[in-house]
């Protein structure tokens, strides 16, 4: 598999603010890649540099080997971007919008593909509706459609599901997954971490313009999150001192224990038995990206 997107030592400053502080990462063809980070981490700036909407102060970016500055025409042909802001041109209908966008990419008579996109995004019955008359969720889907008119091999989605209801979100992901299966590389930023966990094979986490974690979703979960045991002890008993180190007390009076591995379950139970403490309630939850994300961010802040 070749490299779909190469980002090398990219620096971008806005006055005194260093939005990107030497970001480097490679995304392979066919990946479903997640770009995560808190607001202001530089995700959108990085996407803007990739799309030619912003110019990096240093470093290079390329799409399938085409430099986004020197060979911008080729690079932009290979890239489809769904912008984060909900923008639209109020003069046109959905179909006109998509025909115009096709034309910008040099495509005429693109209606077969346009109809397919519209059907997949559940917009077919809105094709001749003016953009102004669409709901927010529909406008968001038209933005997705606009990014896909030229069948770009690399698709960037900058928070595509903000403000889209659950049902439509599922439909959207079904379509994006299909495109990914068909070979399109997908780059996703989102604040819905469960979405990223379910969809992305690999994830980069950004913080203050730096990559603070870059690994497969599986490895990130293993390294930065584990199974969590939620315990409620009878009679409000205190946790034995041997366990206190791995536990935090929740606001509801229950304890949260992060387990490094499953053998820890036995150690916890043994310690409780030895102290003669009865368990009122016990639950085990699997690792999740939210916890991994929080830990990576804390680690980043500490360093």
């Amino acid at each position, binding site marked *: 598999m070749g490299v779909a997107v190469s980002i090398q030592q990219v620096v971008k400053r806005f006055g005194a603010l260093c939005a990107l502080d030497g970001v480097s990462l490679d995304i392979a063809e066919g990946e479903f890649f997640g770009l995560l980070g808190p607001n202001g981490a530089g995700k959108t700036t990085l996407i803007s540099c990739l799309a*030619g909407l912003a110019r990096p102060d240093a470093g290079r970016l390329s799409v399938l080997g085409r430099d986004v500055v020197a060979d911008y*025409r080729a690079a*932009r042909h290979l890239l489809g971007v769904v*912008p984060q802001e909900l923008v*639209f041109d109020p003069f046109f209908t959905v179909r006109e919008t998509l025909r115009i*966008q096709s034309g*910008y*990419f040099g495509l005429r008579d693109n209606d077969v593909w346009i109809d397919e996109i519209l059907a997949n995004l559940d917009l077919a019955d809105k094709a001749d509706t003016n953009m102004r008359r669409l709901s927010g969720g529909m406008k968001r889907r038209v933005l997705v459609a*606009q990014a896909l008119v030229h069948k770009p091999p690399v698709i960037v989605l900058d928070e595509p599901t903000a403000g889209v209801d659950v049902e439509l979100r599922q439909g959207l992901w079904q379509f994006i997954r299909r495109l990914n299966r068909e070979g399109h590389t997908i780059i996703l930023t989102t604040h819905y971490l469960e979405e990223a966990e379910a969809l992305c094979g690999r994830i980069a986490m950004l913080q203050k313009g730096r990559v603070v974690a870059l690994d497969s979703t599986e490895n990130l979960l293993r390294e930065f999150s584990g199974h969590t045991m939620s315990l409620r002890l009878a009679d409000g008993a205190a946790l034995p001192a041997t366990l206190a180190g791995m536990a935090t007390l929740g606001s509801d009076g229950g304890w949260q224990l992060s387990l490094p591995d499953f053998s820890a379950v036995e150690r916890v139970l043994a310690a409780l038995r030895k102290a003669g403490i009865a368990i009122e309630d016990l639950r085990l939850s699997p690792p999740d990206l939210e916890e991994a994300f929080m830990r990576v961010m804390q680690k980043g802040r500490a360093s």
Partner: protein
Amino acid sequence: MTGFRTLLWKELLRFWKVAFQTVAAPVVTALLYLLIFSHVLDEHVRIYESVRYTAFLIPGLVMMSVLQNAFANSSSSLIQAKVTGSIVFVLLPPISYLEFFLAYVIAAAIRGVVVGIGVLLVTVWFAPPGLASPLWILAFALLGGAIMGALGVVAGIWADKFDQLAAFQNFLILPLTMLSGVFYSIHTLPPFWQQVSHFNPVLYMIDGFRYGFFGISDVSPLLSLAVVAGAFVAVSLFSLALLKRGYKLRT
């Protein structure tokens, strides 16, 4: 080429879809000017011996409409796209800055000429101004529209808000066009203001355009053509330089 053609087509559709506001309204405005000024002045003012004041006024009004509407087209399209954010739709595709420039300028010149034809059609009945050399008319209309279209690109890129664009329009474009001899010949001005007027490039656009109708002008039409062509090159180069740098468009 398809990218350029589509952007041009989109820019034409954009004003044509709201033609009532972008074409009909300025035609009515020009008609009102004509009715009022010709009612008040036709009997009393004669600028060229052989030409009635109303006939003299018509080419001026036509050209003023061409210029103002060409400027309005590119500038308002860009500021609107910037303020709403829909500018990304033309920044993401592989459209070169030259194609971008040409599409906006040509669309602006076409809007200007369409409005100009409209103004001519409704005013010509009052006092047919003659048709001495149609090619001059066409050349000045297209060049004038293109200059203002290019200036509109500059203004649309520079302005961050609608009121900044309105300031550009009210304090630069409007005075330059109103004080360019639309309503009078500069020879009727005191010598000092005649001198000042010669620094206004719009004067040459109006005067050269009027020459096409009457075969008479304040300035030699060749000089006017040279000044207007020079202005076009200057404004275009400036506008292209901004676009190439991505000034305010690509941060």
